């Protein structure tokens, strides 16, 4: 069982051939992290760490609670700004797809009804629209982060404020 040297070598060889940016694997206490710098001629780096953590095969038959990510405290409301809460739990996406420009960043002017972000819930993509016209003054959630219903996604200072 376990991971043997020749297996790690096989991954390295594949990584050299492949056009992958980064690979991070862990199994049975062995971690393997391979990455290549975005710049054209950067050296590829690799890093293998031997058993550090217990086997990743979970040993408990009782599910553990996964703590929800709660990005910001609701009380930190920027003065005079409207908040845009998450309409459901889900995954927060800033852009329509990886690599695309974000829908809205801090400092952007938005109109009421503009898409601010996507909340992905079980493969369903829900566009979240700006409730008012104004300027984005806060965007506390990181791309790809999990949010709970009601979490603040954006703060917008209305034009008439």
């Amino acid at each position, binding site marked *: *069982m376990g*991971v*043997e040297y020749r*297996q*790690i070598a*096989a*991954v390295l060889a*594949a*990584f050299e*051939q*492949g056009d*992958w940016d980064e*690979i*991070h*694997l*862990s*199994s*049975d206490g062995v971690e*393997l992290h*391979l990455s290549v710098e975005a710049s054209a001629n950067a050296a590829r780096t690799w890093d293998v760490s031997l058993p550090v953590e217990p086997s*990743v*095969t*979970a040993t*408990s*038959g*009782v*599910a*553990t*609670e*996964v703590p929800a990510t709660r990005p910001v405290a609701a009380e930190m409301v920027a003065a005079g700004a409207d908040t845009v809460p998450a309409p*459901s*739990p*889900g*995954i927060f996406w800033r852009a*329509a*797809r*990886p690599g695309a420009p974000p829908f809205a960043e801090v400092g952007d002017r938005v109109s009421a009804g503009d898409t601010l972000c996507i909340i*992905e*819930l*079980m*493969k*369903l993509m829900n566009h979240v629209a700006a409730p008012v016209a104004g300027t984005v003054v806060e965007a506390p959630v990181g791309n*790809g982060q*999990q949010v709970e219903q009601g979490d603040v996604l954006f703060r917008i200072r209305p034009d008439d404020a």
Partner: protein
Amino acid sequence: MSGLTKVLVANRGEIALRVIRACFDEGVRSVLTVSEADRDSLPARTADEVVVIGPASTSLSYLSVGAVVSAALFTGCDGLHPGYGFLSERPELAEACARLGVSFIGPSGDTIRRGGDKIAARELARSLGIPIGAGSGAITDVAQAAAVAAEVGYPVLLKAADGGGGRGMLLVGSAEDLPSAVERAGAEARAAFGDGRLYVEHFVDDARHVEVQILADAHGNLVHLGDRDCSYQRRYQKLVEEAPAIAVPAPLRRAIAEAAVTLMRALDYVGAGTVEFLVDERTGTFSFLEVNTRVQVEHPVTEMVTGIDIVREQLRITAGERLSITQDDVTFTGHAIEFRINAEDPYADFAPSPGLLDVWLPPAGAGLRTDSHCHPGYRVPAHYDSLLAKLICHGADRAAALALATRALDAFRVEGVATTLPLHRGLIRHADVRAHRVITRWVEQTFLPAWSRGLAHAAPAQESH
């Protein structure tokens, strides 16, 4: 291609558990890829080994060819099973496996390209004399689409060339809606599949969705395992599947099975695959829809009526074995129905419903099979699709299967998340279902409106959700 000793299961959920168990049955070790969100899942606990390939986000884990292929090498696997969805129909994965000496459990990258591209497959079918629906090749602009639509007649369906499983489809009722629809469908297809090519098909009103299961080995042997009727759909997503497709006249079913065999032979198909057709109830004709080059969600109904384990056959085929059965050996016993139990709230427009399963108690008994990765205390994650379980009911005939299904659906207890169980309980009691009169528009146009009205008039729903 000789022998398999250790298989990477590159998927999650019920199909991961299904493949892990098939590996166990074949005496093959299984290694499961998991994202950080699935480390403690039931499949993870059941597999012989587990390898964490990335964060919860699918693009960085289950959808990463590099991560998945590396995981196979990292853990010394000589085979890789992609399940369905995710990377299962990505020729790049099959090709990377071939290059790196890992046996891909599925057809070759070339077959996936030729069969999986909807437009290419339509052309192949046409060249083989298999009926295809009135429609186009690839269209690139609104003018082309308008011309085809005018020719085949509205309503038309816009479909993504690289779509699948009902995604990337848009129904257009009239010429004035076409321009915006082409734009939207093209953008969605680019976003979802990285390929904006579309094609246009006439939409058949009274249609049944019928598909044929194929098994083929690497030695030129190919059999079909009969047909399935998958006409219960909502937004082009299958809800319920039956086998065999007895509502379709026998001569038509024979012609459909022959067409499926002809097409798959032309693709030099190896492995388990499905050919999908549309049957026009009014004209009594059929037309080719698409090829699925992977095991399908609904494969268990075929297993129940044939006694053949499709996933174990996939493993054997990849191990280089010959099919143990000829077409004459394939016999059919009784009738099977599968219900997809999704974490969606049918009382709230099918809103996804992740959360903690306080109670999870599937029925068990003769003729029943539940394929599921769920258990009491499981937290259904928000990151992945909503399929919790497939309940498969097998009876001596369709009436017996329906009777068993009624009792089994009533006995299935879930609390903590909303599910489609109440929908299925209503559906199974409907006269149209009993009479086997369900066509592809039926759920959306006939059943759901009446069911929702019934709920509005009835006492508050009993089901906790």
